[in-house]
């Protein structure tokens, strides 16, 4: 227990350092971009631009600006969008768009896990049989067909042809409007997961302790579920942390196909215009989620692997 608390404390400290470095890098990278938020397609009169720059503190030296931003962010003030959603509080924008992306990502994660992992296990068990080939071919299609192809196809089939789900429009609480975008988002990761699970399971099924279990006359499904899965899921679980964070960061393609008011398209617009505040907010949020997701993944791996636990406490 004490060990556990110490691990959590040390990971929290590391997480804080990660966010600090991340924020600093992002700040300077955005300011190094060859364009800025005050350049427009229309020529802006010089005095207007100077006023705008003054208003947002862009006339001060870069390091002073950095200090000010750091102080504000540390006191919980993310600032307001400079260009894309001019004048609106970034925290307000995140509060509206992030729950959408989070929900979408969570449903997609459930879809990806419940399709990908069982498929990978079945492919590994039936290695080089028609089941294996069928699953791996399906996975390959899932990997090859990008979301801008799968999305419209799913919309056409489930929405247009069968008429089961609405094709577009996001309505919180109404699962039917969330299903198609989540399926589009989850299928790609399901394909990745199935291949990684298959590879991981194949590594384990070779090993001596599986042979021992079989020699003991243990039932096949118990061998798979109790003995092989622990080791066989190692690559898949390592992949899940970042994959989950990736799914909730929002996807421009899916958001535009299904008209989901998520965070992805705002973020791309912010990058295209150099809207520093609207970039920084999502980046820090995303960074915290990555740190958290990878920490959880490490914990799950310790829990699944007794030898690793022994090594960690030694």
């Amino acid at each position, binding site marked *: 227990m004490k060990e556990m608390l110490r691990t959590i404390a*040390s990971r929290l400290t*590391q997480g804080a*350092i*990660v966010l600090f*470095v*991340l924020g600093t*890098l*992002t700040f300077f*990278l*955005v300011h*190094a*971009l*060859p364009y800025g938020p005050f350049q427009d397609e229309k020529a802006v009169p010089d005095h207007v631009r100077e006023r705008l720059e003054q208003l947002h503190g862009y006339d001060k030296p870069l390091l002073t600006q950095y200090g000010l931003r750091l102080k504000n962010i540390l006191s919980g003030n993310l600032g307001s969008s400079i260009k894309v959603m001019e004048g609106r509080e970034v925290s307000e924008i995140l509060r509206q768009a992030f729950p959408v992306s989070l929900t979408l990502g969570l449903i997609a994660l459930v879809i990806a896990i419940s399709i990908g992992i069982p498929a990978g296990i079945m492919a590994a068990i039936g290695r080089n049989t028609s089941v294996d080939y069928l699953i*791996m*071919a399906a996975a*390959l*299609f899932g*990997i*090859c*067909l*990008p979301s*801008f*192809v799968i999305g*419209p196809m799913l919309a056409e089939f489930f929405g247009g042809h069968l008429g089961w789900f609405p094709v577009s429009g996001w309505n919180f609480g109404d699962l039917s409007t969330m299903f198609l975008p989540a399926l589009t988002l989850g299928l790609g990761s399901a394909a*990745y997961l199935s*291949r*990684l699970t298959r*590879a*991981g399971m*194949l*590594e384990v099924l*070779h090993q001596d302790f599986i042979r021992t279990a079989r020699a003991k006359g243990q039932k096949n499904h118990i061998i798979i579920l109790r003995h092989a899965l622990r*080791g066989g899921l*190692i*690559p898949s*679980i*390592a*992949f899940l*942390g*970042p*994959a989950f*964070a990736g799914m909730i960061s929002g996807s421009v393609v899916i958001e535009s196909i299904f008209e989901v008011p998520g965070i992805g398209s705002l*973020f*791309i617009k912010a*990058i*295209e215009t150099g809207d520093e505040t609207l*970039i920084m907010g999502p*980046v820090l949020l*995303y*960074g915290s989620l*990555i*740190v958290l997701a*990878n920490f959880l*993944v490490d914990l799950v*791996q310790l829990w699944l*692997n007794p*030898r*690793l636990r*022994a*090594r960690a406490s030694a």
Partner: protein
Amino acid sequence: MEKSPAISPLVADVSESEAGHSLWSDAWLRLRHNRAAMCGLAILASIILLCLIVPFLPILADPALQDLPNKNSPPSAKHWMGSDQLGRDLLSRILHGGRISILVGLITTMVSLTIGVAVGSVAGYVGGKTDAFLMRVVDILYSLPFLIVVILFSTLAKGYTNDFTDWVVDLTGWKRDSIAPFTGLIPLFVAIGALSWLSISRIVRASVQDLSSREFIEAAKSLGLTHRRILLRHIIPNAIGPIVVYATLTIPSVMLFEATLSFLGLGVQPPYSSWGILIKEGADRMLSNPLLLIFPSLFFIATLLSLNFLGDGLRDALDPKSSKD
């Protein structure tokens, strides 16, 4: 290196000289007996060859050539895979696009594989503070807005790529126009590769952590093998399955990512194109002319399917455990 004959056992010397030879030649022998893998290799080789020689083929040489009377034509004797809305031959566009897509796939995957396996295996094997440091760097890079880094990197590299193109022109005497679209993209590819090793490193680290705690690694350590040798000879070959699988997964994802970048104006620019771009353009016209989506996708899928079979075969061939069976 000086060796004291009393300590260095004869056995170690024999394995040193023979294992290096037999690991790879054994693998090749096993690979040659794997029909699916050899099929994959053959298909892959023919696609690459076609893409390489396409500028020298009489009717396919110019992908931008417009056959205006035959816009949107179905497959015919003149246009084997039909033509697009501007009357350009689809097969020619696909083969020219393949040059860029295959280049993207190879360069970025090599870069990301090298960095990812190195970082992941060191983090997993050494553990402790090194592991924490490397993995937090990975966390930071994960969260850094990829697009900004790519934009900055390609702006920065622009001057250097021009010099590099000049250098290649001087060296080979090729026409500047014919290689500029490729050399101009190299910094972009390197940037993509340099940022797409993160998932590989996490997966390799997880496998290596697991392997490092096994008895045979304890044995290798107590035999006094160097860490380097343990990693390269005993750990990485045992983690080869997930590595090969992830490498074959990286190739399609970077090929498609290249298309995304091109639409933001960062990658390949018209009249040049790539498989990703053709698939995207085809997807936009999915209902009016589905062939524009189907044919490029077929090439893409055939390439990846054969890569997969080859990868699976390679995995089996390199797997130290499969020699027992």
